């Protein structure tokens, strides 16, 4: 078979080279000649170096997303405490959450047909204090059955696993907020992988009764999107939009305590990670203890794993934070802190 078409695979090439070797002396002679005739004359490369040409060539996305639909910067520091009431001497928090089908922009111009809580991916960051009574009115406005499965303590019938909520139906989850920590909630309908990869997840934070020290708090949900449905992610991100915080750095104050609630909601890949540049952070796994377990600059997180990171920047300037899985970083899970005096 002769090769006329453009692509010759590397394997074919190696095989051909191997056979070429076997052709022997005459092949070698002619080969050397042809190689010299056409090959690797570097003088021809000279014009290349001036051609760096493009203004900002490099790793990243081209363009920007429509921020009126979803603004990762607003999502970053927004915590939804729900409707707060006192009932019989205790705090009750009530939320209304719907499952909807909505196209979201996961990289500039790239739309993903998502299933989303309240029309956004990740869903709203729900936050309560240990011991609060929580009531979540869940309405399914999608075309598929959905649920909400909260991580934490709750009765069996509040687990969001067996009580399917069909299209048009609703269900009220009611349970107490415990244990304190950085948790998550997600749909638990089969096929589970599909319901999570489509975007039905969010952060669920329970503060300890005594609270945590004052800090600039933010939530970062690590996620990815399989835009072509081949069972692997094309785009990775923190809070959905690839490279958003590289284009729009997260501003923080020098020496101020920064507390990041990190949730790994990634599908398909087992491990994600979080790495901070020029700094180390106190890490509280799952956020269920008040003492940090580690002082590090890189933390690996398996699927569904989450924790709290606390750090302060002593120098002003721009500092990267990103997955230390380079592939994820280069496909969008990359951002910048801009530390200001």
């Amino acid at each position: 078979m002769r090769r006329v078409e453009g692509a010759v695979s590397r394997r074919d090439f190696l095989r051909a080279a191997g056979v070429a070797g076997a052709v022997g002396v005459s092949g070698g002679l002619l080969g050397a000649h042809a190689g010299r005739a056409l090959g690797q004359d570097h003088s021809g490369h000279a014009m290349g170096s001036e051609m760096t040409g493009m203004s900002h060539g490099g790793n990243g996305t081209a363009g920007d997303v429509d921020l009126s639909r979803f603004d990762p910067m607003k999502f970053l520091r927004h915590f939804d405490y729900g409707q707060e009431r006192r009932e019989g001497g205790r705090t009750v928090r009530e939320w209304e959450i719907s499952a909807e089908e909505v196209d979201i922009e996961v990289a500039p111009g790239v739309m993903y047909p998502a299933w989303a809580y309240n029309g956004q991916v990740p869903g709203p960051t729900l936050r309560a204090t240990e011991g609060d009574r929580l009531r979540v009115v869940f309405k399914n406005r999608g075309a598929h059955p959905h649920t909400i499965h909260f991580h934490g303590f709750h009765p069996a019938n509040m687990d969001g696993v067996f009580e399917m909520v069909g299209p048009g139906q609703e269900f009220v989850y009611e349970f107490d907020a415990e244990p304190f920590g950085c948790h998550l909630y997600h749909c638990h309908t089969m096929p589970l992988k599909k319901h999570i990869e489509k975007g039905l997840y969010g952060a669920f934070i329970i503060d300890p009764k005594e609270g945590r020290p004052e800090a600039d708090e933010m939530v970062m949900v690590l996620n990815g999107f399989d835009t072509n449905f081949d069972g692997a992610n094309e785009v990775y991100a923190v809070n959905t939009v690839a490279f958003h915080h590289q284009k729009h750095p997260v501003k923080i104050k020098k020496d101020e305590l920064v507390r990041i609630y990190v949730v790994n909601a990634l599908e398909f890949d087992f491990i994600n990670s979080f790495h901070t540049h020029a700094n180390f952070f106190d890490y509280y796994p799952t956020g269920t203890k008040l003492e940090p377990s580690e002082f590090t600059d890189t933390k690996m997180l398996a699927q569904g794993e989450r924790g709290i990171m606390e750090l302060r920047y002593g120098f002003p300037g721009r500092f990267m934070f990103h997955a230390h899985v380079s592939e994820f970083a280069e496909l969008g899970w990359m951002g910048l802190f801009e530390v200001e005096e």
Partner: protein
Amino acid sequence: MGKTNKGRGPVWVLLGLLPLLGLGVLLALITLNGAGIGREDVPPVEDLTATRVALPTENEIVVHVTNGGPDPVTVEQVTVNEALWDFEMTPGNTVPPRGSAEITIPYTWVEGEAYGIGMISATGTTFEAEVPLAVLTPGLTGDAFWRYALIGFYVGVVPVSLGLLWYPFLRRLGSSGMNFVLALTVGLLFWLVLDTLLDAVETAGTLPGFFSGVPMVLSVTALTLLGLLGSGRLFRRGGGESSRLSTSYRIAGGIGLHNLGEGLAIGAAFALGEVALGTFLVIGFTLHNITEGIGIAAPILKERPSLSHFIGLALLGGGPAILGTWIAGFAYSPLAAALFLAVGAGAILQVIYEVSRLLLKDSERSRKPALSASNLGGLTAGVAIMYATALLVSV
């Protein structure tokens, strides 16, 4: 009833236009209202094919894409080796159906490494292109131009000329020996036509769907054959039989188009940086092509053409290899390659017909069976020679 051939006035013209008018109305209705099963919820059909990837400088990757689907495709993001990368696209990010565009990615690649390029459309669909082995794509410099010409020369012109050098030897073979050589030629050409046609089909298979590559290639082959047969008859109308020299020229022409395909293969291999493969193809094709000289010489063994004819035949048969390396090296297009190869296959088929006729006429004259032992032997030997030399270029 009335006469069938009434006047051909304006009414006649109107009658001719009537069905077209109806067709226009029908098309307008379909365009406006859909075909009755219009579905807005169906996602667009996106089909983007990378037709060529070039590395014109050390820090640039250029991907030529063609939209083979019925809907426009908008390229929103581009990845290189699974990293989202900045890019520019001309004339624009949206490629209309049947349209083409060029994506320029500022990427500093490493010589000798492989690259996978991904294009993500607005709907999240991905399309891929490949750089199997990164080397600088030769620019259209005078130097590269001559180097390609040189390769084409020693793949095409030299072996065909060497084959023609058998002419004096073949002339002393006698009548049955000449018939053996003619049969051998048919065997050689039989292999060549299969080879060329399969190449054309394979290349056509890489084209975007809307080209209908494979049927197009087969049709072009058939039309070339019929066209050459028809025009051959035209030439014979006055002077009786077409001369044996003109048969040789037609063999050389058909072989030339086949060698153009070989030039394309070699040029493409070099352009893709597959120097070892390219070199290897050079060796294989050179060996392969020496037999073609015999085929070209066979019809004129009983004549004594001047040297200038031999030079002409060698250039016609071998020269297109040079053209092929140029095309593939500087402006490879799978569409042009498939078309050239299809024409070549048709031309060779016509030559097989011509040479077979020579054999048949001779058997009529000598009252020997056309499928004599020596003719069958020649045919088999031709195929065997081609098979043996083709082993060298089968990768």
